[in-house]
């Protein structure tokens, strides 16, 4: 039985330990500080609700991240329509402008990476961020995503390949535009 005082200090402790990791996952996933903050709060509210039923045999951090992944994907589904429309709408104008300028290239490159990540399937996106940014091991990632380690390996490999392919195409695009 957890009493309220204990629950309060537990959730505060857990929050302080993990909020930054969770936030970083979410900021890469959503590409927006605002969204990442809202979702981070959502994640820890869900953690609080689940804490009294949390099974001690399970790793706390991977459990929190499995919640974060669900929250991120729910958010993705909600925003899907709006963001697809917005992005392509702006892209039409942006890509026609020509500024042969190094600074511009840098900005463009970032925008391309952002878009390449955003265009990945949400499951691929989660794998790439968990492995690449949060630096979880294959086993931890499979625990978070609740799939086999083999699937994590394959998905990660494919996701990276796709990401690089998209980036190469787009980077070439920038360079030819710049000439």
């Amino acid at each position: 039985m957890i009493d309220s005082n204990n629950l309060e200090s537990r959730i505060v402790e857990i929050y302080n330990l993990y909020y930054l990791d969770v936030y970083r996952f979410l900021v890469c996933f959503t590409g927006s500080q605002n969204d990442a903050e809202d979702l981070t709060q959502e994640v820890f509210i869900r953690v609080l609700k689940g804490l009294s039923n949390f099974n001690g045999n399970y790793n706390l951090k991977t459990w929190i991240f499995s919640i974060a992944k669900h929250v991120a994907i729910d958010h993705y589904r909600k925003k899907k329509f709006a963001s697809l429309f917005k992005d392509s709408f702006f892209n039409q104008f942006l890509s026609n402008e020509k500024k042969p300028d190094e600074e511009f290239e840098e900005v463009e490159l970032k925008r391309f990476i952002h878009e390449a990540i955003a265009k990945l399937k949400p499951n691929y996106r989660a794998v790439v961020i968990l492995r690449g940014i949060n630096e979880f091991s294959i086993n931890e990632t499979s625990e978070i995503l609740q799939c086999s380690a083999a699937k994590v390996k394959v998905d990660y490999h494919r996701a990276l390949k796709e990401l690089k392919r998209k980036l190469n195409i787009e980077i070439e695009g920038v360079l030819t535009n710049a000439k």
Partner: protein
Amino acid sequence: MQNEKDLFDMLKEMYPQHPRKEFVPATENTLRQRARGMGKKRIFTKISVISSSVLVCAFIFSWLISLNGSGTVSKVAHSDGGASSSYAMDEKEPVVYIYQSHNSESFFPELPEQQGYRDQPPYSDSKNITLVGKELSRALKEMQINSIHDETDIAGVLKSRGLNFQDSYKVSRENLQKVLAENDGIRMVFDIHRDSIKRQDSTIEIKGQDYARIKFVVSKTSGNYETNKTFATQLHEQLEELYPGLSVGVIEKGINPQNTYNQELHDNSVLLEVGGIDNTLEEMYRSMDVFAQVLKVIIEKSK
């Protein structure tokens, strides 16, 4: 860009790597409030469960009386009388004072929800070192030795007064001073702690049973250092005689960070570090039962 590491480094740089400053405490606050809200709900259901069970009990009780008539009532009265007479018999002056400056120190095996969460030592508001002090007090009472067990929730007091963990000894000192002023008969003072060491260092098997080992800690900076140390050594030697290996020995501390552990307030004052983060309450209790025997021998010797 072929290199994955470059890609990830770039990704990390792309987005703000920290939330806004005001976000962190604001969310912490939200979580606190939610946790409190959940606690209230729980307490409410607890109260309703308790009150309904009291009602049921009252009903059954009255039903029994009406069935059995005066027979049940006289039995109840009899057992009442027995309890009060045994209480009167034990009313002697207390000779031992037991307290826990870090009262919320707890144990992983007793907190299943913290199992997967070993990067910090366990603390609990309920299943904590206070229970170990209580067991010592109970074991002493069984041997007709009276003690005062301070059950103050020091961690709670710190929180409500906005003090730090380091101030624990200042808070525990208040009641200690009060009790010493009011009770001339106190002959020993023990501040019981849970050590933060791992199982292999904190446990010993004696005759097939696991015991939490005991360390006697003496502050080098207290004005009573010499007398405290003599007393601690006496405890250690007596314990070695009864249960060899259970005592880790007398440890001298308190220089850095400087702390007297309130030991200047009494000649026979020792800080006990019992067991570690991986011990069960049962193992702790066992050691306390043995330690009570040690105290009995020492008290009888000095009579």
